[in-house]
């Protein structure tokens, strides 16, 4: 038996299944064991990547409607009673009948207004969730890149090497800036996948800080969901063109990050 944490413990750690005492003991071990820390990180990354990849299939609209009908059938008898009761109104009900109709109309208008409000509210919430999800995926990818000791897939500071490397690998093209500010350097690039679509991950360094710039094709009908400005202590800065979505993520100060993303944005209009 080695001194390292067992696979079962690492799994339980990633799954949040350790008791407080176990967690304290594991945390203490991780402080002094880089190997186990690395494996714990791997487990955690594998779990979160599996979680994202597992969310694969959307409910078809027709199935949703069918299930709504089935699920709501439970309360159908009550509705039937209501309908029957309303049909008992006779023509002789006179003003009372019209007052009833007016009340129904007012109710419908009010319900319509509420429905529109709810749809808008839901849209706002969905956009917020999407922004957060994009930021999470980008930060996961950035952290994963920082965590490994291996060089990028294309290791070069020459934009004339980095850009052509993507030919045939991604279905779009982009420009890289000619001149970078002092202390800023292109380190290389990786081909990655974000939301199951290929993206170029450009790796820069600004001083001792690392920056990932993700460039992805803008799809038809894509709504403008810029990622959240901050995620797990990293700052994000983005822009988009008619063809591209570009997001930079780093722990460097915001001014330097904005400067770099500004240079990349200007390079696209060449």
């Amino acid at each position, binding site marked *: 038996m080695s001194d*390292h944490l*067992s*696979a*079962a413990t690492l*799994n*339980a750690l990633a*799954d949040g*299944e350790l008791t407080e005492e176990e967690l304290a003991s594991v945390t203490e071990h991780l402080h002094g064991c880089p*190997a186990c820390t690395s*494996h714990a*990180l*791997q*487990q955690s*990354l*594998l779990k979160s*990547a*599996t*979680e*994202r*990849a*597992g*969310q*694969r*299939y*959307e*409910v*078809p609209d027709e*199935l949703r409607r*069918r*299930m*709504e009908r*089935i*699920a*709501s*059938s*439970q309360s159908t008898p009550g509705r039937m009673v209501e309908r029957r009761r309303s049909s008992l109104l006779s023509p002789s009900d006179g003003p009372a009948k019209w007052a009833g109709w007016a009340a129904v109309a007012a109710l419908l208008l009010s319900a319509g207004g509420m429905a529109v409000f709810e749809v808008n509210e839901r849209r706002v919430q*969905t956009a917020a*969730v*999407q922004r957060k*999800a*994009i930021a999470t*995926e980008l930060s*996961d*990818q950035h952290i*994963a890149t920082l965590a*490994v000791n*291996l060089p990028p*897939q*294309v*290791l070069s500071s020459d934009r004339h090497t980095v850009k052509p*490397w993507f030919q045939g690998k991604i279905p779009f093209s982009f420009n890289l800036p000619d001149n970078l500010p002092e202390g800023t350097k292109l380190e290389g690039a990786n081909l990655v*996948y*974000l*939301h*199951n*679509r290929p993206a170029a991950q450009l790796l820069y360094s600004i001083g001792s800080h690392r920056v990932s710039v993700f460039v*992805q094709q803008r799809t038809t009908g*894509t709504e403008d*969901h810029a990622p959240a400005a901050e995620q797990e202590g990293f700052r994000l800065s983005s822009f988009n063109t008619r063809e591209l*979505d570009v997001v930079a993520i780093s722990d460097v100060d915001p001014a330097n990050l904005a400067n770099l993303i500004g240079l990349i944005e200007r390079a696209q209009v060449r």
Partner: protein
Amino acid sequence: MTLLPWKRATRETNARPSSFEDLAMPLLPALYNVAHWLTRNPSDAEDLVQETFLKSLRGFASFEAGSNFKAWIFRILRNTYLTSRSGLAARRTVALEEELREDGESAPAAYPEGAIDRETPELNLIRLADRAALHGAMEKLPPPLLEVVLLCDVEEMKYKEIATILEVPIGTVMSRIARARAHLRESLESNSFHKGFRA
């Protein structure tokens, strides 16, 4: 970029709903997602979800208010799957009982240190943003391992809930999770090796 809305939907169920509709509809996206993974085709997945809804609606009177509705309906989905055409076919093609030792107590011995290869370069594993590769790796999992990954990682259920749904001891759940992750890691590493990452 798009995000499947089901995850959020399943988490926003704390408003003390009480009718079947209120409890079941927010779980529909998650149920369909798991059903599609298990059956591997949309038509069978729709049938499975519909059958699950009908069965759970019929049995809703016996559902104990305040207990775990999500675990309850997933258990119905899973049992319905096992007796479905695709479920029976999957069970026939996978030598489940031989491949997986179901005795939870002895399970840890099956993956002592081998489940995590400590010499494996991290990078091969961490190319996890390649969702196509992950989909491929998940598709290769035997059904008992796939379902535990879906419930644990995708549905974020606790081991105890998973044990209830699968009707197995917690030790077996842990064993399957370890095996599933080892399988995924192996597939991804093999995939990375064949693709070659260097320019």
